[in-house]
């Protein structure tokens, strides 16, 4: 992977990730989140995880973000922009997040493996969908079926929650 591309996509992802929480307009936040997820998908592909990168674009940048935009436009949230900012809560939240970031830096700094580069692959970019599929249906068959039940329960739950009370 080229260092130049890594920095471009990492900066793109972090800048638009910050834009998600800085923007006061929810629609702009959702669109920034799309760009952030596209940058993240590029980082996945730079790590030779092609399947995960494509799933990221399809599921997150495609399905989930359309759901977010649909709900934002359905609820018509323009009133929220006029609220004044609670500066004490903002400063407290930023301080806690900054402390977390410093701690993550310290942990990565004291982690010896973090200074090593990635070892080369024997066959780069060949068959990761095949290998993930084999693992998914052999070693992780039960979790895979449980995740299917989770999706089913979520679907039923969403229909139940969004139904109007008729009585």
């Amino acid at each position, binding site marked *: 992977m080229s260092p130049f591309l*890594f920095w471009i996509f990492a900066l793109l992802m972090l800048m638009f*990730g910050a834009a998600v*929480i800085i923007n006061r307009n929810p629609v702009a936040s959702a669109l920034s989140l799309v760009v952030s997820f596209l940058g993240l998908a590029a980082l996945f592909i730079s790590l030779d995880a092609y399947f995960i990168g494509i799933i990221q674009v399809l599921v*997150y940048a495609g399905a989930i973000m359309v759901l977010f935009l649909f709900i934002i436009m359905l609820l018509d949230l323009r009133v929220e922009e006029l609220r004044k900012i609670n500066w004490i809560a903002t400063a407290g939240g930023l301080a*806690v997040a900054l402390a977390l970031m410093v701690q993550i830096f310290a942990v990565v700094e004291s982690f010896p493996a973090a200074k090593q580069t990635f070892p080369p*692959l024997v066959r780069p970019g060949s068959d990761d969908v095949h290998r993930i599929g084999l693992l998914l249906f052999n*070693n992780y068959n039960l979790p895979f079926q449980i995740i299917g039940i989770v999706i089913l329960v*979520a679907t039923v739950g969403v229909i139940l*929650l*969004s139904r109007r009370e008729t009585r």
Partner: protein
Amino acid sequence: MITLGHYLVVSGILFAIGFAGVMVRRNIIIILMALELMLNAANLSLVAFSRFHVDATGAPSYNAQVFVFFIITVAAAEVAVGLAIIVALFRLRQTTHVEDITKLKF
């Protein structure tokens, strides 16, 4: 050269951004988006470790990528249920601002 540490630091910064979003923002929809950012930061470090651990046949460790697949699936279900709850709440109280929702406050 790009090392494992670079990816871990980027993932940590992304997690901190998501965490700051949950702490600072008061709009439930933005809080849900910040939660998604945190889940994705965890995914990035999992994929980086998967690429870092090359096994005897010279292939990355795909177990972590299966785990990321599960996380993405659960996140999709979580967003669907969360947004349905927000819509139900908005119908009831006409707001998505967390400070307006004090029904359970003691």
